[in-house]
């Protein structure tokens, strides 16, 4: 394994120091945040415990398929989910990862020989080995992120068609481009989604939410109409499975206009809406997400989020931020303090308008434009999670629709548990 930033331990505060520095932040959440940031690798003993017939290995994602050489996720003792970060010896990483080991009959998370916590592999979904009536393997239709069923309806993002337009941290572009060149189908069939969802729900007590997203589709009569139609084809089909207003779902689209949002609500039965601005500063956004900046713009994206609050309601609209990218060189913020101040200012501005910011811990991807960058310190992510959670609370915004069970990805929504 190649570790890009091998002397990081001498430059950053250790997790043990941070446990002491933040006594009011649970160690589970600090550890999960660092597992997302640094990643984790399975020891040989842990690999022996992983059984792909029982545990969740392979999965389908916007950035491609994973196989049984990595695990999809872990639970910590308190139910905290670790959704990202499983790496293998073949990967290039920024910092050396944690080691998930098997010691004294327990799966444990270790670093430099010290045991930090117990862990549990996620479980293989019951539908995984089944096929739709069209013969599609169901595991290729929906992925189970813990308790959430994820549908990635189209795996190609058209921002990559704009020269220099792809987001610089994004690994979806390369995958989608290659698949497109090979002539592979990058769309998921709505009927397949319907059948897989119906099958998945036979596993009672497992799933709490359905989430759909896709790469941006810019075409149509109006900008994004084509993307809208892809969502509507799936949502109008799957909502027939549920009682009126019974579809527990979130949708993560490119920022849509009022007419499109209303159609999502009225025809699709969508009640919670996400559109990821990704970078919480106009200037950095324009540098990091040039395609989004060109087509919709930073202010335009925010306006569409505010419009979404009018359509779906206060607290029913969120936006993800890939935190840390705003510190990339050469055009990012110079210091973590400066970045945190700007991020929290913008988080508050969005909260005032009823929009929730969700914090995504950036793991530098090898197949991205930013592959030589380094993500910030653990301290940075703790301060951001704490700050975002406090702002959300002070504006009376709840995080239930993206909480520790329904999403499990964001440290700030883990903090919202108490």
């Amino acid at each position: 394994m190649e570790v890009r930033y091998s002397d990081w331990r001498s430059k950053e505060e250790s997790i043990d120091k941070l446990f002491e520095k933040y006594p009011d932040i649970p160690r589970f959440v600090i550890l999960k945040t660092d597992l997302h940031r640094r990643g984790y690798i399975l020891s040989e003993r842990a690999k022996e415990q992983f059984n792909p017939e029982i545990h969740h290995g392979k999965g389908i994602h916007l950035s491609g398929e994973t196989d049984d050489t990595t695990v999809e996720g872990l639970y910590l003792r308190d139910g905290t989910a670790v959704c990202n970060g499983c790496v293998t010896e073949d990967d290039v990483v920024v910092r050396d990862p944690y080691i998930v080991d098997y010691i004294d009959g327990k799966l444990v998370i270790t670093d430099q020989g010290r045991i930090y916590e117990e862990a549990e592999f996620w479980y293989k979904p019951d539908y995984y080995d089944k096929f739709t009536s069209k013969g599609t393997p169901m595991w290729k239709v929906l992925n189970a992120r813990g308790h959430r069923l994820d549908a990635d309806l189209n795996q190609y993002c058209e921002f990559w068609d704009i020269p220099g337009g792809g987001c610089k941290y994004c690994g979806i572009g390369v995958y989608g481009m290659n698949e497109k060149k090979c002539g592979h189908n990058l769309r998921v069939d709505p009927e397949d989604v319907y059948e897989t969802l119906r099958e998945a729900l036979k596993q009672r007590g497992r799933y709490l939410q359905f989430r759909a997203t896709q790469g941006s589709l810019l075409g149509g009569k109006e900008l994004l109409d084509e993307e809208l139609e892809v969502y509507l084809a799936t949502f109008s089909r799957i909502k027939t499975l549920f009682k009126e207003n019974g579809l527990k779902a979130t949708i993560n689209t490119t920022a849509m206009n009022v007419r499109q949002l209303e159609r999502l609500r009225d025809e699709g039965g969508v009640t919670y809406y996400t559109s990821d601005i990704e970078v919480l500063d106009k200037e950095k956004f324009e540098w990091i997400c040039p395609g989004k900046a060109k087509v919709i713009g930073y202010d335009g994206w925010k306006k569409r989020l505010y419009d979404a609050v009018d359509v779906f309601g206060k607290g029913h609209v969120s936006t993800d931020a890939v935190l840390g990218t705003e510190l990339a060189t050469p055009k990012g913020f110079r210091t973590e303090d400066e970045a945190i101040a700007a991020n929290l200012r913008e988080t508050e501005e969005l909260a005032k308008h009823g929009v929730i910011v969700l914090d995504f811990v950036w793991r530098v991807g090898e197949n991205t434009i930013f592959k030589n960058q380094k993500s910030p310190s653990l301290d940075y992510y703790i301060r951001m999670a704490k700050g975002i959670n406090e702002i959300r609370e002070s504006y009376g915004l709840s995080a239930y629709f993206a909480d520790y069970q329904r999403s499990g990805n964001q440290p700030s929504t883990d903090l919202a548990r108490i």
Partner: protein
Amino acid sequence: MSVKITDKQKAVIEGRKSYKSVATISRDGELQLTTYRYTGVDENGNLLIYQLIETTRTNKNLTYALWFEKDVLISFSDGEGTEFTVKGVPVRNIVAGPFFEKKYRELNDEDFENDLVSIYVIEPSGIIENNYEVLRQRERNEWGILGHMDRDLVSKEDLKDA
């Protein structure tokens, strides 16, 4: 485990008709007392609290107790004189897996309105007998100096007006 839940207590803990109250403290130090419908005991002798509602203060407080190793109290009564309180710290919150799904199905089959958010595992550190008769007897045996004097007259006749 230093404290063992007896078979008799287990029957009350698992009894559908027993009264079960969970006392917790919030992150701001506020006390909370809530009645629960379902509790149990696992094969290791830990107490299980079946959390049916996500948004309650007690759910938050149980997580707070797990995160910061705070005690919680769970009081039981069968309504027929068996009363006790289990004290302990939540050590695990089960949100998924075969055991979770089995319990979800059981509770859901019993009452379709039952959802299951998670199962808190409490490691008991003490069991306090609350049974009135037991407490009364113990005090009288151990602390003869306590109580009103008129209760210990040889004859109740002495209490009557002359």
